[in-house]
């Protein structure tokens, strides 16, 4: 019993100590000129879905959940955000080359069709990010239309 108590104390101290290591926050609070909404007309319904289900990891503005304040929850989240933004950043979409834009739109369609995005670990804690079939269709209808128009320009 004495031993267990000691170990629990060590764990507790470690847990308290890591709380002081806070990762940088992804909150620019502004809409860049390269934002997708500045480059293309994004319909309101699609924009709403993007904001609730995608922007936390795929834009420069994350709405941080409660567990982000508790480490290592915040670290885990920071890691996801940095990976997500590297892959696709809606705040930076306008800086992509035309080919890359087309590929990204196609990748959005693929990952939504296959259900790989939004991540299941994310939708587990964010109920509003669970996409209904109707929402999926709205996104895909828009991305494929935009993709076709971009392909004919090139």
């Amino acid at each position, binding site marked *: 019993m004495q031993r267990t108590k000691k170990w629990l104390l060590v*764990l*507790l101290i*470690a847990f308290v100590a890591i709380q002081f290591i806070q990762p940088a926050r992804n909150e620019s609070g502004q809409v860049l000129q390269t934002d997708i909404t500045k480059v293309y007309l994004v319909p309101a319904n699609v924009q709403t879905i993007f904001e609730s289900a995608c922007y936390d990891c795929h834009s420069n503005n994350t709405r941080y959940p409660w567990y982000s304040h508790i480490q*290592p929850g915040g670290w*885990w989240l920071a890691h996801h955000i940095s990976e997500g933004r590297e892959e696709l950043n809606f705040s930076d979409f306008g800086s992509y*080359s035309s*080919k890359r834009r087309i590929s990204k739109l196609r990748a959005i369609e693929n990952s939504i069709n296959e259900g790989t995005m939004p991540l299941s670990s994310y939708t587990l804690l964010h109920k509003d990010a669970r996409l209904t079939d109707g929402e999926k269709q709205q996104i895909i209808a828009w991305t494929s239309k935009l993709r076709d128009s971009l392909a004919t320009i090139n």
Partner: protein
Amino acid sequence: MKHIIFMAAASIVFFAACDSNNNQSKTGGDTVQSTEVTTSNAAAATDNQQSASPVKEIVSSYLEMKNTLASDNDKGTAAAGDAMVTAFQKFDKSSLTAEQKKTYEDVESDAREHAEHIGKNAGNIKHQREHFDMLSKDIYELVKTFGAGRQLYYDHCPMYNNGKGADWISETKEISNPYLGKEMPTCGTVKEELK
């Protein structure tokens, strides 16, 4: 109190699991890469007999990828993806004209990312094929702009992606379908001959 302790313990375990996964995939990639070196050297040796093209290495890693996909070999495909990333890194832009440079950079920004994804997705050949589909358009443009220094064929498969179809480049006139693999190896037609 108990809850907090439990959470801390659970998260530490979770983190450790996360980490070991990463390491595993890294070492996996390394071993795959070493097998690739030998195959791409062999391909380069035959290429030397033909006239040189600035995109020769990129194209040969693409063809390697096409052949491994046709034989449903996800690991070989990943290795070819890594080889293509290296070929892009080594590419010398200094001899290009301003216009060629623009085309190259436009293609590279996209193609390199596809190659990276293909390299990272051994074990998920479906995903590799999705990227290969997009990559093929990029490589087509590179070949159109710079030439490949060899005879190539632009092929079309009408069935892939639920009948939406997809294209690829091949070094042989015979069809060897990288999208459907062994399931339908000869599905497709030559739509253009590239010199």
